[in-house]
């Protein structure tokens, strides 16, 4: 009884909290570990799809981590990767079906990129590195943490690209008409793919100049 209580108390112990907070900065999956940008940059032209994409990835990472962690003692090591892929693909299909049923407009904008969550390197990375060796609860937190670390970058990109590229946020006009009449122009470049890459580069730059430990030697 006592030991059970102890375990419960430790659900949010400092070690567990680190699982969530570390991926937000020091071990950010995008800017530090270079994982998982593929499936996401293309949907950051607007805030809404970026947000839905971020949410989907977080859900999939967290759940996949839990499932694999529950299965970890039974998975035959020879078909480990295939089992992981199957679990991930099944979760992604579920997410895709739910999106199509409840937010059809956004799911159309996300088009193939939801499916590409399957090959998102964050997923396989976390499954191999963490879920295979840890209990479900820490695995869940690790998934949420990594998902969030990934999310804030996507949402930041979506925010800048939509605000300055289109003058709107979440589809609502933010920059008033009078600005345009006074000669303000939307920065069309931000809507185009290259801008996403340059913005990510800039985020990495800012992050690394504030935290010198992350600097690479070429």
């Amino acid at each position: 009884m006592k030991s059970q209580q102890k375990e419960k108390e430790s659900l949010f112990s400092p070690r567990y909290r680190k699982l969530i907070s570390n991926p937000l900065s020091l071990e950010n999956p995008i800017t530090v570990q270079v994982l998982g940008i593929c499936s996401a940059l293309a949907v950051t032209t607007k805030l809404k799809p970026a947000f839905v994409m971020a949410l989907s990835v977080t859900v999939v990472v967290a759940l996949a981590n839990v499932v694999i962690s529950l299965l970890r003692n039974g998975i035959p090591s020879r078909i480990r990767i295939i089992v992981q892929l199957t679990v991930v693909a099944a979760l992604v299909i579920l997410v895709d079906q739910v999106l199509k049923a409840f937010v059809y407009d956004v799911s159309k904008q996300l088009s193939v990129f939801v499916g590409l969550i399957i090959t998102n390197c964050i997923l396989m990375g976390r499954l191999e590195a963490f879920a295979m060796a840890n209990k479900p609860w820490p695995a869940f937190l690790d998934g949420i943490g990594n998902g969030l670390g990934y999310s804030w970058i996507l949402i930041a990109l979506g925010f800048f690209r939509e605000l300055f590229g289109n003058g709107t946020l979440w589809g609502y006009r933010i920059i008033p008409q009078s600005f345009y009449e006074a000669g303000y122009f939307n920065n069309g470049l931000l809507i185009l793919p290259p801008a996403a890459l340059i913005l990510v580069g800039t985020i990495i730059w800012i992050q690394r100049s504030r935290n010198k430990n992350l600097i690479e030697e070429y």
Partner: protein
Amino acid sequence: MQESINIFVKSIFIDNMIFAYFLGMCSYLAVSKSVKTAVGLGIAVIFVQVITVPVNYLLNKYMLTPGALTWISPRLADVDLNFLSFIMFIAVIASMVQLVEMIIEKFSPALYNSLGIFLPLIAVNCAILGGSLFMQEWEFENFGQTVAFGLGSGTGWALAIIAIAAIREKIRYSDIPKPLRGLGISFILTGLMAIAFMSFLGIKI
């Protein structure tokens, strides 16, 4: 035929997997430190892409689209297995990669030695799954077009990784602000290359 050539050109230069859709960025950034390895990975991607896109096209056409199963029995006309496409595509890709690896190992050990280490990496390369998903989304009309698309998108990806590898080899000797070194500058360079590639939008095809 002309349509296929259009698709080939467009998928290399205009709808480039890296510059327009950012697909396969993980290996693009991780394996682009030297031109030699970049060439190896690039060729392997072209190879796998040319095989998986057409195979998945057949799978999609004869199994997954609504009513595709009528070739087995007309009674199956209402069956819609589309929700299985992600899992089927990734299964085909994983097994194709495995198969290609075994075939190369058996028949050309030299090629295997240079490509071998990259092949397992490719199964989880977004550009490969992306190619198959785009094939489904864009509803290509015939087998030839999917081969053209597979070849084109693979070549586009290879071109991108070889180019960035060449630049990264040279940039070693440049004085880049410290926090920007490595990952940061690679992103910005890719962005600049993407802008350059946008000039191809003007091609009249």
